[in-house]
């Protein structure tokens, strides 16, 4: 206590100095309109700048979540647009009833948002790893899409990760797809060259379509629901045996810039697989 008092007494003039300067500065900024305004505007600029940085940083960190939500939303809306377009085309019956049916149909799919952990483009048989696995409900054979279009099919899963065979896999990727509005279907394959180009094979010769038509999944495979965007027809070739068309398709999915994806979990997939298996087995027995 004594030391403290001594210390205070010894340095009393410094405290006095601070007090007097504070009084002066307060007077200066309080009663001089010029200094006051300069001070005020400078302080405003500084504070504004600080808040600007702060919000920029904050918004950057919330972008991840925003991105995820947008991917989900985009996928959902894309699907809905497709359904509604088809409904519009078939607008002969009572619309509201069909719409409700379609929306119910949509809700049978569960969407699991995931992030791409590793991605490759330059091999013939590319693979993608995503950060969701069995514990999140991801199973083998589920479809994977992103906001722009189809990505691939889950090949194997661990507890927290899954390997996806993307469209860009020469040997293993066979996604069933169809030409929008016409319904002719074929198989999507990749030739291992350009990551933005794939081919739809086995389109029948009598199919009528034109360049620029959209290709989407047809929903036969039980992996993807109908209407997930695949790409746009760029060129039309004859197949090697001349029995069908081979369509060159520009993929809507940018595999070089893939971050947020959704795994499409179809509740009916098990049932559909089981019945298909049963049918195959019974046919084999007959043969």
């Amino acid at each position, binding site marked *: 206590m004594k030391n403290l008092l001594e210390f205070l007494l010894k340095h009393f*003039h410094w405290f006095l100095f601070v007090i007097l300067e504070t009084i*002066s500065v*307060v007077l*200066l*900024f309080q009663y*001089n309109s010029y*200094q006051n305004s300069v001070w005020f505007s400078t302080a405003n600029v500084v504070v504004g700048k600080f808040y600007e940085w702060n919000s920029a940083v904050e918004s950057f960190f919330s972008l991840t979540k925003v991105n995820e939500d947008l991917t989900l939303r985009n996928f959902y809306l894309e699907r809905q647009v497709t359904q509604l377009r088809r409904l519009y085309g078939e607008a002969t019956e009572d619309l509201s009833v069909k719409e409700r049916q379609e929306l119910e149909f949509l809700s049978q799919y569960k969407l699991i948002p995931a992030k791409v952990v590793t991605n490759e483009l330059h091999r013939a048989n590319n693979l993608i790893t995503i950060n969701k696995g069995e514990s999140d409900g991801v199973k083998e054979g589920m479809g994977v899409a992103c906001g722009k279009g189809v990505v691939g099919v889950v090949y194997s899963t661990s507890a927290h990760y899954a390997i996806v065979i993307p469209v860009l896999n020469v040997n293993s990727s066979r996604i069933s797809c169809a030409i929008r509005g016409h319904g002719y279907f074929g198989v999507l394959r990749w030739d291992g060259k350009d990551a933005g180009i794939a081919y739809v094979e086995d389109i029948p010769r009598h199919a009528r379509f034109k360049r620029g038509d959209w290709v989407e999944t047809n929903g036969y495979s039980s992996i993807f629901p109908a209407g997930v965007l695949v790409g746009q027809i760029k060129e039309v070739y004859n197949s090697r045996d001349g029995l069908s068309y081979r369509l060159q398709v520009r993929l809507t999915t940018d595999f070089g810039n893939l971050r947020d994806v959704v795994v499409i979990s179809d509740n009916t997939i098990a049932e559909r697989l089981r019945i298909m298996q049963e049918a195959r087995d019974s046919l084999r027995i007959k043969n």
Partner: protein
Amino acid sequence: MTIDLLKRAGWFIVFVLVQAMVLGRIHLFNCATPLLYVYFVTSFPRNYPKWGILLWSFLLGLLIDTFSNTPGLASASLTLVAAVQPYYFELFVPRDSVDDLKPAMSTLGPLKYTYYIVVLVVLYCLVFYSLELFNFFNWTQWASCVGGSALITLLLIYTFEIAKNK
């Protein structure tokens, strides 16, 4: 002690009145204003209580501000100079000097006194005009104000010192 106090109070009033009536109205070339009252702060002797210097200077600044209608401006700058003065003066004190040595041309000699007074006056003008203009966009005006005022103030102080010696 009482006499010293009265004398100081007398000088105090004189500096305030001179500044308020005469010197504060001079704006040579629209920039140089004599700020003679800083001489009051520079003339405190060695070992004068530091809080006393601070209080005197603050009050002087406050009064000057009252007359020139710039609250806080001169008091802030003068208080700063008053805080520096005792420490700075200590550097110039000869080894075998009296305890209450006064900073003057006669006690320090012209050269040392010049070092002493120029730095304090320039410091004062620097702080004063920085606070008054409060931005450095117009830095030529700021520099000419600091330089001009310091020059004319120093001129007056030298006149004063020389007159005092005779």
